[in-house]
């Protein structure tokens, strides 16, 4: 139901990996002397890399300020990366279902549609509980569901009902096919909700 920063992590790790690999290759070339053979202006193997006076470089206040700013920027980026790891629901806000706003707007909260989906899933035999979350836009909606069934439920039957009734009904309501659908199934020892239903058309005589 919640989204993680998988794409961001992969991108950042690829960039960091390329930088680390480039640094490692450079150090290996320097240590083996290959770099100096390729370019005599570079330092020789087993000789100090920095030969000048470092104090002259980092002495001025401007250099210290630059190092400080760079450090703070890197720290902030790292902090943002950590914060991006918090799982987010990223649910849609309100779906705009009007075509011509001049004649009036039509708004439907995504949670209203989610509640309708939940109540429909809750009527399926064997379902103990359900929660539904809509993401995306009204023209490209995405549906994520968490369905809890009891340990006697026919899971294939529940999935079949969701695929043939619940998802098509939502597509009918939004008048567009769903772009993506996710179902998370859990099994619980609780009784199914529909197990308490009493459907009758007859008369009860006491």
């Amino acid at each position, binding site marked *: 139901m919640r989204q993680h920063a998988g794409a961001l992590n992969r991108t950042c790790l690829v960039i960091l990996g390329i930088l680390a690999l480039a640094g490692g290759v450079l150090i290996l070339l320097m240590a083996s002397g290959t770099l100096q053979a390729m370019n005599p202006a570079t330092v020789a193997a087993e000789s100090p890399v920095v030969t000048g006076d470092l104090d002259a470089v980092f002495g001025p206040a401007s250099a210290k300020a630059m190092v400080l700013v760079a450090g703070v920027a890197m720290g902030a980026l790292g902090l943002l990366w950590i914060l991006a790891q918090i799982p987010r629901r990223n649910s849609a806000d309100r779906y705009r*279902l*009007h*075509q011509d706003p*001049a*004649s*009036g*707007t*039509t*708004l*439907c*909260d995504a949670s*209203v*549609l989610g*509640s*309708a989906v939940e*109540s*429909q899933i*809750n*009527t399926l035999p064997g379902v103990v509980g359900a929660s539904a979350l809509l993401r995306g836009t009204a023209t490209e909606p995405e549906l994520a569901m968490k369905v809890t069934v009891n340990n006697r439920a026919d899971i294939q039957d529940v999935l079949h009902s969701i695929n043939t009734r619940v998802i098509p*009904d*939502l597509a*009918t*309501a*939004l*008048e567009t096919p769903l772009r993506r659908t996710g179902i998370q199934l859990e099994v619980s020892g609780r009784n199914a*909700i*529909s197990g*308490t*239903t*009493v*459907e*009758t058309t007859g*008369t*009860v005589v006491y």
Partner: protein
Amino acid sequence: MNATAAAAGSRDLDSRGRTVLDRKVLEKIASQVASEESFAGGSSGGFLGIGAHSDFSARPRVTVELAGNIAVLSVEIGLLYPVPLRQATEQLRRRISERVNALTGVEVRQVDITVTWLKPADEYAGRRRLL
């Protein structure tokens, strides 16, 4: 002769008096028109809006902004699930505009619709029913 007749007609119009239509009248008419649609409903019960529940037999809540003879309506409505929401609300918008205009003479410029709940026809499925 014509001037005399016109003056008499003007006096006749003045003597009829004025008809003032309250904003609430428009709200109730629009609300009733909306509730006549089989797929639409409102909320009932509760106290000061707390504890109200969705009800297909209740009238949807309508608020009207009037500017002269032009009205802008805001409708909070519940709909049957699953109906095509765009088609249903467009049908509702058209019907409210036509009926309010026909019954009151007020031109309905906009009808803003907010869907507050969606409920399947077999709303009692999954619950205990009182016999």
